[in-house]
């Protein structure tokens, strides 16, 4: 195989994994925008999506499409329950309390998944077969196309939702200024609930569609969450197109470093980027310098 084809191969797998990071980052952004909270359980929503889909498919023998849909619904319910019965009951929580409570949620989801499904890794069949498609000598799995397609769909749907629907606009208003939003009659609590639901929904989708490639395992959430957060920071926290671009860039860098340098250090790449961005440009690479000067990090 010549180097060109090899590079193309790394590019394709980098874009695939980057799309997943982008989806996790979008989940972070939605909750951050409406509440200012970083949800440390975001990666575990993804894990939960994969695990429940496997459960419906393998144990209850539902058809694949139905398993996926029910898994996404269940993750969304978990997100709603978490917001309604935990986050909403806190009175004037400090940032440390919020961090610890979402960490607690992450531990609970992880521990619950291990309790129910044990420590094994599970796989789902690909949505449309495992026969790789050729592309200029490199190959791409049909599942990767599904992942790209879903990312595109999510981005378009979210852009439409925030731009054209009244609920989406209300959520955006909460993100800009909660008090002003409340004064004009927006039910802020309901918008926060909705943002958790939406973010869990996207996490669930990511979990279902990635399982045929990377398997589902109870302990997969933390690292995925960390990389997703790195992606969100890289693109600028709260910035949706930034998240997509950053996801693809990080996916590509990770894939190239795994292929060309060493596969052991590939996980470190995303984390080093995360630290570098946090230290030097905490507003993300797409943020304006002047805008960043006004924020506190």
């Amino acid at each position: 195989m010549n180097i060109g084809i090899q590079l193309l191969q790394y590019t394709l797998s980098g874009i695939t994994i980057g799309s997943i990071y982008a989806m996790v980052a979008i989940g972070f952004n939605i909750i951050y925008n409406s509440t200012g909270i970083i949800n440390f359980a975001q990666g575990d929503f993804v894990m939960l999506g994969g695990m429940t889909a496997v459960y419906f498919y393998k144990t209850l023998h539902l058809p694949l499409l139905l398993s996926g849909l029910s898994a996404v619904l269940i993750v969304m319910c978990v997100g709603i329950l978490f917001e309604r019965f935990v986050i909403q009951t806190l009175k004037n929580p400090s940032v440390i309390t919020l961090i610890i409570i979402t960490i607690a949620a992450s531990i609970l989801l992880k521990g619950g998944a291990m309790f129910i499904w044990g420590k094994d890794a599970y796989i789902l069949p690909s949505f449309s077969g495992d026969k790789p498609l050729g592309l200029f000598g490199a190959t791409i799995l049909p599942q990767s196309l599904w992942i790209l397609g879903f990312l595109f769909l999510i981005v378009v749907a979210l852009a439409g939702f925030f731009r054209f629907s009244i609920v989406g606009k209300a959520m955006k208003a909460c993100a800009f200024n909660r008090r002003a939003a409340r004064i004009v009659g927006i039910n802020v609590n309901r918008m926060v609930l909705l943002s958790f639901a939406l973010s869990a929904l996207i996490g669930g989708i990511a979990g279902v569609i990635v399982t045929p490639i990377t398997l589902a395992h109870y302990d997969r959430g933390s690292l995925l969450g960390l990389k997703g957060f790195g992606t969100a920071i890289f693109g600028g926290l709260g910035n949706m197109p930034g998240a997509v671009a950053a996801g693809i860039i990080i996916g590509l860098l990770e894939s190239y470093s795994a292929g060309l340098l060493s596969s052991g250090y590939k996980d470190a790449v995303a984390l080093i980027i995360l630290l570098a961005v946090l230290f030097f440009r905490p507003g993300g690479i797409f943020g304006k310098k002047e805008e960043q000067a006004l924020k506190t990090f």
Partner: protein
Amino acid sequence: MKRLFRTSYVKAGLTFIIALILLMVLRNPYYVGILIFLGINIIITIGLSLLMGYAGQISLGQAAFYGIGAYTTGILTTKLHVPIILSFPMSVLLTVFIAFIVGIPTLRLRGHYLAMATLGLGEIVHIVFNELISLTGGPSGFGNIPLIRIFGIELDNDYKYYVFVWAIVALIIFLSLNIINSRIGRALKAIHKEPTTASTLGINTSRVKLYIFTLGAGYAGIAGFLYAHYITFLSPGSFSLGFSVLLVTMVAVGGMENIWGAIIGTTVLTILPEYLRFFHDFDILIYGVILMAIMMLRPEGLYGIKIPLKRIRTND
């Protein structure tokens, strides 16, 4: 008399005496082993509680500093045959140095950003432990770390090591109580309450935070040293992200308000799993439930829950 009990000498001394009495009572070597781990964990969580409770910052990478301390002394004593008397300061200094370098940019960040930065840092260190196979032995680790010998006595059984570890715990408590009551401690409280006011009063907020972050890392380095020479075998599994999160859980469950909260939380979460052997694989679920319950019902932690002793006494 009452005033005497408030001094840090007496508090640290009493801790040591209680530890010695416990040793006399518990002649079961299994329990002694657990209490050695308890002492090691307490050293880390006291540092973490200074950072969380007093400086209002959070570190999700404390296991990394613990690991750096342990691996440094392990590698120095086994591969380079450095005597332990030298490897101790070297491992603690290296941990402190790394924390200082990393802390300079990291502590400019706040809240969520700091939490994620330290989390990322911890994960990177963990990856390095796994991948730097020539030095660390990779995922399978390395062993044959020598035992500690002080004043001609080799700490070759759990009872001797227990006394050594708890003496250090008492020293750490003494040091920490004095730091809390020093200028830096008061500055920390001011930063925690009103960062803006504190900086207008001439407190260099980022520098004070950096001091306390490095101090906490130094404590973790000492704990790592103690761990390495007790277990005499190191592998990356002991220094994972999960352990960092567990340490934060210990401090949060006990209470972030002062170091006794950290000690209580660490004790509960170190001893409890031993009684829950029945659920051995599900300890993580139980940690999650405990942490969630504490944060929702009593975010200030277990410390200071009033046990109605007085009422019982007046009823007599």
